[in-house]
């Protein structure tokens, strides 16, 4: 359900240049599990849109199917939303953008939606340099169908049932770099101070912007042996898994959980300990890292991945790289959906003279 949130704004709430408060950028109530990383990302999107003073109704929100795709209902309630079919958000975004180049397009997807069923559409949206922010809420697991591995699951990571994944992951950031995306970033749902500027930058980039956001699934990928997990205290976390996993009777019971926020300086690695003794490594980029060098970024990220570390932050940005879809097609500056019919239909006289070609 997307129950609207009551709009009660305290008079002292800060306002952006449009006179709007952060509350004006909220959407319906989230129906995701308590503690879900996706809700933190939703909050970061709200913050970024407010900070950019985007006119809410000039924003278009697109998504496919899955937990992540539900979240477009939870922010900017006065924006138009389109929740399409599984893995095919990119094509809807392409058509929508083709019709009206003046609106701001944000697509929210997940690792299942984008890296398995939707890999082809994601790849080709990047090739077209579609002007949009494409955000992947990446938790390595299918949530709504109860915990299957996704294509971003790391080798050796364990499912909640204990099976180990054997297939190598698709890394969205490496994929985007190899396909020529002009803006590639990685964030962590628990790191709002880093994520908000990334989203603002992605929304402002004049072409395809991809942000891969590590966003742990508290219900299906937050257990012993998972490599995409938050660290939770053993006491707080374990009972939910026990109840869910062993009895079977309380499969829908999810213990309340809190997401962990990490705070670290650039160039610093943060190790998030898991209760089984394994760790998630997060690392911000070197301050001296040249984000305009695609090949260097690729090599750096790939090397760190080998060491089990996810590099986060802005990985590559080249706003000048190639024109977007409209530049490549020389589309009129006036959005196609606003061109008057008189300019589109050649009229009777031209048809009559055209017919001479067919005599």
């Amino acid at each position, binding site marked *: 359900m997307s129950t609207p949130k009551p709009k009660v704004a305290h008079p002292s709430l800060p306002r952006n240049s449009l006179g709007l408060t952060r509350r004006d950028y909220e959407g319906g109530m989230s129906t995701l599990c308590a503690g879900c990383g996706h809700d933190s990302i939703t909050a970061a999107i709200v913050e970024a849109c407010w900070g950019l003073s985007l006119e809410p109704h000039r924003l278009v929100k697109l998504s496919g199917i899955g937990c992540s795709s539900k979240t477009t209902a939870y922010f900017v309630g006065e924006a138009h939303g389109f929740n399409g079919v599984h893995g*095919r958000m990119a094509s809807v975004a392409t058509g929508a953008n083709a019709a009206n180049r003046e609106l701001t397009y944000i697509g929210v997807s997940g690792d299942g939606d984008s890296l398995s069923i939707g890999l082809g559409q994601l790849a080709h949206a990047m090739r077209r340099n579609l002007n949009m922010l494409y955000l992947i809420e990446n938790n390595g697991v299918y949530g709504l169908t109860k915990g299957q591995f996704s294509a971003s699951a790391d080798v050796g990571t364990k499912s909640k049932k204990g099976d180990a994944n054997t297939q190598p992951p698709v890394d969205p950031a490496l994929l985007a770099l190899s396909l020529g995306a002009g803006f590639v970033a990685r964030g962590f749902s628990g790191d709002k101070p880093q994520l908000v500027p990334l989203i603002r930058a992605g929304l402002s980039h004049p072409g395809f912007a991809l942000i891969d956001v590590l966003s742990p699934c508290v219900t299906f990928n937050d257990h012993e042996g998972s490599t995409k997990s938050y660290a939770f205290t053993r006491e707080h976390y374990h009972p939910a898994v026990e109840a869910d996993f062993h009895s079977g009777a309380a499969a829908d019971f999810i213990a309340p959980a809190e997401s962990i926020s990490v705070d670290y300086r650039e160039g610093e690695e943060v190790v998030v300990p898991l209760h089984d003794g394994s760790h998630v490594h997060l690392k911000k980029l070197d301050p001296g890292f040249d984000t305009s060098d695609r090949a260097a970024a690729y090599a750096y990220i790939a090397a760190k991945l080998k060491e089990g570390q996810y590099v986060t932050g802005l990985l590559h940005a080249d706003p000048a790289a190639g024109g977007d879809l409209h530049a490549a097609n020389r589309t009129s500056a006036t959005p196609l959906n606003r061109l008057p019919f008189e300019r589109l239909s050649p009229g009777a006289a031209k048809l009559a003279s055209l017919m001479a070609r067919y005599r």
Partner: protein
Amino acid sequence: MPKASHPQERLNDFTIKFANVNGTGSASANALVMKAIFRMGVPVMGKNYFPSNIQGLPTWYEIRVSKDGHLARSGRVDLMLAINIETYAQDVKEVSPGGYVLYDSTWPRSAVLERQDITVLGVPFAKLCNENFDGVRNRILMKNICYVGALAALIDIDVEVIRTLVTEQYSKRPKLVDANMKAIDLGYQYAREHLPCPLPLRITRLDHNQGHVLIDGNTAAGLGCVYAGATVGAWYPITPSTSLMDAYRGFCERYRVDAETGDHNFIVLQAEDELAAIGMVVGASWNGARAFTPTSGPGISLMNEFVGLAYYAEVPAVIFDVQRVGPSTGMPTRTQQCDILLCAYASHGDTRHVLLFPANPDECFHLAVAAFDLAERLQTPVFVLSDLDIGMNDWMIRELEWDDSYRPDRGKVLSAEQVEKLTKFQRYADRDGDGIPYRTLPGVGPKGAYFTRGSGHNQYGLYTEDSAEYQQVVDRLKRKFATAAALVPRAVVEGPGTRPIGVVSVGSCDSPIREALGQLERCGVALDYLRVRAFPFGAEVEAFLASHSKLLVVEQNRDAQLRALLVLETAVEKAKITSILHYDGMPMTAGFVTDAVLAALGGSDRRAAAAG
């Protein structure tokens, strides 16, 4: 010189078939023959039977010359141009008794292939071209042009008409005009000196083609999209629909490029597959552009999920299905009407879609325009079901005309001013009782924003899993489909409508049926004829089905799909329908229809038809 065994004169009434190798330029040569006959004022039909291949396989082209203006295949071959040695044996067998074979006598033909009831004529095309032209490729191309010259001598095509056409075609490359005319003269002179020119199969000038053009259905449909104001075309290449997008793009480059800025007032998106193509159409239509995708059966299969979304979320979409032989890859370069049921009920769940059935390029043009109006008026996908025969063959039709007073029907789209006046926008409420809700376009204003979704939603556009709310929406969709029945193009009825037996058919069956009805009438069998042009079926279809005691449903598929749709969607009595089915991939002939109708009618039927 051999003599014709049955020298029967057939003025402006015969069929020529060309047996070629594909990729050798034969298509241009054959089109030149067809157009020359057309320019001489004689009605003509051309059909291309080509392989799914780029170069080196057999390909045939058939030209029917018909003073009476029949546009269906005749089922005869009066003159075979047997240029392809590989298929010579088969081609000779196909010639109608009393007919002629013209072959390349550079190489001797096999004596075992001789037939006493036909006349074989030889011209050494390869030898003539090898002696007069340089370069392997050039010699192959000129060999085809050379047979146009020989043919001109044999059937009395005016060489000056050919010269004019060649000059028009190569207006920017005069050297090619000279080379082509040289090849034509070689063939022409050789035939005049060595063959009994002209044959009893001859062209004489008529004046029957005033106000007519030769155009294929895909070109006409692409042009219709331009005239309808479509700005977004998304597609994935597939035979036989590719030329529709080629045409759209070509016309847009002519009519939609800003003279001052060079800006394009259109966009063509070549998608990664048909799933993306329809997704783009849905996204663009949702955002207020007129958008379309051309495809064929396999593409429709891939589009099914999105079509269901567009139906349920009520997003306009125009889909051209240029049908080809299925199932699976089937025979991609052969024609059929085999996607009727696929399109009518495309996607999972309870879905029904508006279908339009053009019968010729003229209807491709006008129904393309109607498709956009209907899709936006009804906020739903609309399929235009053409086929390979209509889409890829040149048809003689009346010149396309346009009414400048036409304005697109954009449907119930609320303007910014209307949105501002609302207390609350309700996306899926039935305000007018016609089942069609009001929609807004993204960006119109904060009050107009809503969330489009394929998941359960109520009449306000909000997510729901409530049974009653869900049902309210799908019941309204059913009412909307009933509204559509009154908006779609009417079926065409021919005959007084009072005869006891009626033929019912669709699309490209039209030409053979109309010719067959004439043949049948001459045998004393008079039938009414209903050609459906749309689904859902209008009241006139229901009335026709009810008022005839026997119905012959003619269509080009194995499983009687039109009949199935009629049985499912009208009150017609199943027992009174007899199916006449043609599904070998070739366009139907009038003779096939006539024979099948006579076979289907018993003695009492024949008496009733005679009385009627």
